[in-house]
């Protein structure tokens, strides 16, 4: 039977009980510890400063409101906030409202009826796009006569609304309650991302939106859209429509139209999430070649073209004309200040086989240089579009001169600490993904492994550490599509979310288990099929079967 059985145990209700993290405990020796929830309830990721008192207030769907504070610089015209108020009201009261539980109840003395949202800085940034320098801080005070959420910008207010919704719990009669609480919060890292890969498998828009929604519940703020790769080119380019016409799995059903892309970007913006597109070159471009003649390098076997193609052809002027026009389009379609240019895993064998490329080499075959010169030209092109760029670590490793604001993305497992040290010593900002390849699944509670990563655990000065602006959880698409993406990503990515948001010393794995178990049930209740951490139940199980 189940091989873990002899070790496992208990674990019951998430609201009031705790589960053992360690499967390898003999059941006869270990007794269930007293059912005990975290003193931080279900907060996830844990705020920087939290004080929760014993005093509790009731909330009812009929009288509770989220409103703009009088002094707020964002008013009813800030649709980003109005939209968020409605969304969080639905999250908080969705289930009870349907049951009609709180009909015609009078406001009692200990009832909390209002959350006032107060944007304190003169410019709320309501109509802007979030950026890497956006202020995401907020302060939340839950007390009578009303709760107050103060944030300099709307981005902090969005996070504060999520936190407020996480403070709610149900008493034994099913009534919503919240304890008097003071929270002061801000992220430890500015770049907290999720990479989704829509090339190995096409991801319907609905799936992308549901995951943006879930990202907001976990205070992620970057959607790294690995939109094209070898396998397919679903991005419908206005300038080069042939790219998806020929390179997508299907030219109509498996593409992202300009309207789709716009919808994703706006949906993300309303949740304080940046959308950084990745157009990876010169490798990982097989699908580009289908719709753009002469873009890829013809490979040779001996003196004849073999009929197969390699990376982008770096020696033709037409390549750079194409890149110029293409990235001009990208820079207008995607508002974020950064675009990810890839640059990873370039296979040199095809370049080596091609006599035209060999001719351009001065004497000795120095193929990394070919790559070098391509990337240098590409970076210049992108610079003229006024975008910053992110690149995978190989570009830095090959010694390409980068703009000072370049973000180097560290992904190669094994030696990533040394890499972080080198990149930051060279003065570049960096983000970490190496330990967070969530597509690499294994049996049991691998979230603990992701949780225990410390991104600044490398040798370097304080100045160097400051150059680490965050990290990304990557869910590559070889084995993932709409059928399994969401449960595979959540709550495993939530472990990364807390590492990137909360203070460095938030490392108690038992406390994390208790909070994360409840957080996952909350995601389930909000309609997200987040998978379980271990034997247990949620008061409201997943219904979307």
């Amino acid at each position, binding site marked *: *039977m*189940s*091989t*873990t*059985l*002899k070790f*496992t*145990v208990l*674990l*019951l*209700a998430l609201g009031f009980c705790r589960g053992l993290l360690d*499967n390898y405990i*003999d*059941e*006869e020796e270990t*007794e269930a510890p007293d059912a005990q929830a975290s003193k931080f309830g279900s907060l996830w990721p844990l705020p920087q400063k939290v004080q929760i008192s014993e005093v509790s207030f009731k909330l009812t769907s009929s009288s509770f409101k989220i409103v703009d504070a009088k002094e707020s610089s964002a008013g009813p015209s800030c649709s980003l906030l109005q939209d968020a108020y409605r969304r969080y009201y639905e999250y908080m009261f969705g289930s009870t409202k349907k049951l009609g539980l709180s009909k015609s109840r009078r406001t009692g003395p200990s009832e909390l009826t209002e959350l006032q949202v107060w944007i304190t800085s003169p410019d709320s940034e309501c109509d802007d796009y979030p950026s890497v320098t956006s202020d995401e801080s907020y302060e939340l005070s839950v007390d009578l006569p009303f709760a107050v959420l103060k944030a300099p910008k709307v981005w902090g207010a969005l996070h504060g609304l999520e936190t407020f919704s996480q403070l709610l719990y149900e008493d034994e009669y099913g009534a919503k309650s919240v304890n008097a609480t003071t929270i002061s919060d801000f992220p430890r890292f500015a770049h907290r991302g999720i990479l989704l890969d829509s090339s*190995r*498998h*096409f991801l*319907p828009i*609905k*799936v992308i939106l*549901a995951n943006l929604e879930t990202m907001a519940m976990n205070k992620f703020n970057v959607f790294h859209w690995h939109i094209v790769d070898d*396998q*397919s080119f679903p991005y419908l380019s206005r300038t080069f429509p042939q790219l998806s016409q020929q390179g997508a*799995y299907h030219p109509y*059903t*498996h593409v992202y139209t300009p309207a789709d892309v716009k919808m994703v970007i706006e949906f993300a913006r309303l949740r304080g999430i940046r959308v950084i597109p990745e157009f990876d070159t010169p490798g990982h471009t097989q699908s580009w070649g289908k719709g753009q003649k002469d873009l890829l390098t013809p490979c040779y076997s001996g003196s004849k073209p073999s009929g197969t193609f390699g990376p982008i052809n770096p020696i033709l002027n037409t390549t750079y004309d194409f890149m110029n026009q293409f990235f001009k389009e990208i820079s207008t379609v995607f508002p974020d200040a950064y675009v990810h240019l890839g640059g990873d895993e370039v296979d040199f064998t095809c370049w080596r086989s091609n006599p035209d490329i060999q001719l351009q080499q001065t004497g000795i075959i120095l193929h990394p240089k070919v790559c070098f010169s391509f990337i240098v030209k590409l970076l210049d092109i992108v610079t003229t579009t006024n975008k910053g760029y992110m690149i995978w670590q190989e570009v830095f490793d090959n010694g390409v001169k980068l703009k000072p604001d370049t973000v180097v993305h560290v992904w190669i497992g094994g030696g990533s600490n040394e890499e972080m040290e080198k990149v930051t010593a060279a003065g570049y900002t960096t983000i970490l993904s190496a330990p967070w390849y969530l*597509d*690499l*699944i*294994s*049996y*049991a*509670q691998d979230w603990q492994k992701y949780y225990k990563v410390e991104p600044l655990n490398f040798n370097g000065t304080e100045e160097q550490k400051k150059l680490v602006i965050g990290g990304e959880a990557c869910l590559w*698409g*070889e*084995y*993932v*599509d*709409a*059928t*399994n993406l*969401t*449960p595979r990503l959540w709550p495993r990515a939530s472990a990364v979310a807390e590492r990137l948001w909360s203070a460095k010393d938030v490392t108690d794995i038992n406390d994390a288990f208790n909070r994360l178990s409840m957080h996952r049930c909350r995601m*389930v209740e909000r309609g997200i099929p*987040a*998978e*379980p951490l*271990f*034997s*247990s*139940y949620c*008061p*409201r*199980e*997943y*219904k*979307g*079967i």
Partner: protein
Amino acid sequence: KKSRHSTLNHLSFEGVWPLPQAFTSSTERYPLNPQAFYFGYGKQSAAQQGCSVLDTAFKRYFSLIFPDYSSVDQWAFVDKPFLVEVSVDQDDCESYPQEDSSEKYNLSVCEGKASLKAETVWGAVRGLETFSQMVYQDDFGSYFVNKTEIEDFPRFQFRGILLDTSRHYLPVQAILKTLDAMAYSKFNVFHWHIVDDPSFPYQSSTFPDLSSKGAFHPMTHIYTQSDVRRVISYARLQGIRVLPEFDSPGHTKSWGKGQSDLLTPCYRGSTPSGTFGPVNPVLPSTYQFMEKLFKEVSSVFPDSYIHLGGDEVNFSCWKSNPDVRAFMQKMGFGADFTKLEAFYIENIVNITSALNKTSIVWQDVFDYHEKIPEDTVLHIWKGLPEVYQTELSRITKAGKRVLLAAPWYINHISYGQDWRNYYTVQPQNFSGTEEQKKLVIGGEVCMWGEYVDATNLNPRLWPRASAAAERLWSDEKQTSSVDSAFPRLQDFRCKLVRRGIQAEPLYVGHCKHEYQGV
């Protein structure tokens, strides 16, 4: 790659999963039009209109064959009608599928009609599944089926899936959906591991406290009697048996909450520690309780088999208990607690035998050489191939029938295409006589529930379990190449997705109709 796909379309039997035993097919094809498509009973058929199993199967398979059939207008042009004529030898329409029910069928598609012949309605249901998988659409959405002759029957009579509803509660809807998908892969046994240590969701009419105290929640996380009946009757219509497991004496923590004195009190030194171990085997009240419980279970679950568990019994609590030790002495068991376990299991097996049920137990029971009735089936769950092959040979040598689960612990996930491992299992590859090999009655895919609930069950189960399904149904020689299985299984998984089953991808690629949920 594209040509490969159209090849599949032209030889429609290749698109059938699991692969039929014998088939011939041609490129001659017949158009199907939902406006002019009929199921009917053959004149000679023992079952006729009113047969619950086949009438509902016709309704079910019509929608599966024509997934985008919605408006009448779209199909206004009526071709020659196409008839699928079904004939069975036995009128077993209102019965339950049994271990020895024939699932054999012959399917002939030729001259613009299909004829499906089977001994039982269960065979006919398998044949309808095959037919539904043979129908394909061209680029304009028109439906076709190729001229084909199929003779098909399962290699093993027992092809099961275990779901664990104790470690996580699975809503009835999730179970029903799994039953649908099981029928698509021709599985025929739902092994319902309904209770275990963490929770007791089965609502017993005799002992209601078991679930009111032992379930995760007494109202929302239970299976009522009508839930259970619904699962059984839903399974029946798909030709699936429901095999309940009430595992004891270990794995019973949740039982103790609603039934006092059932579990053994553990001792620390000379005082009870307040904790409990396995079922208490020394009290007569234990056996009285079990007799009543199994009497109820036997009448609720119509299958003639019942799974009694018997695995992983931890002796430390029994050892600590002075009453148990005294009983050991009295019985002359010495310090050998396996004898005590044997004593317990014998008693339980006798109870169920008296109720006319055949027992299935986990292999641990055989390992302790317990005196068990000749017809008891041993369920092999431990170890790598060398280990389970030895066990297969040992148990069959003793003349016992076996069921293989060890290589199909599908709850264990890893990166990459692990379905290949499930596919290449050889259930009869162990040292033994031909007679011994025949004692392998089948296999089972186990989805234990530590890390699985309704949020991730479906994509974790499918299409990985389908790999085992072909191993258990099809001829081993014809399906020995995992590489030729790959494109067929990819094709089949897209069929599952089209039918609304969240079957995950095998590798990069796409389905014409992607999954539309989240």
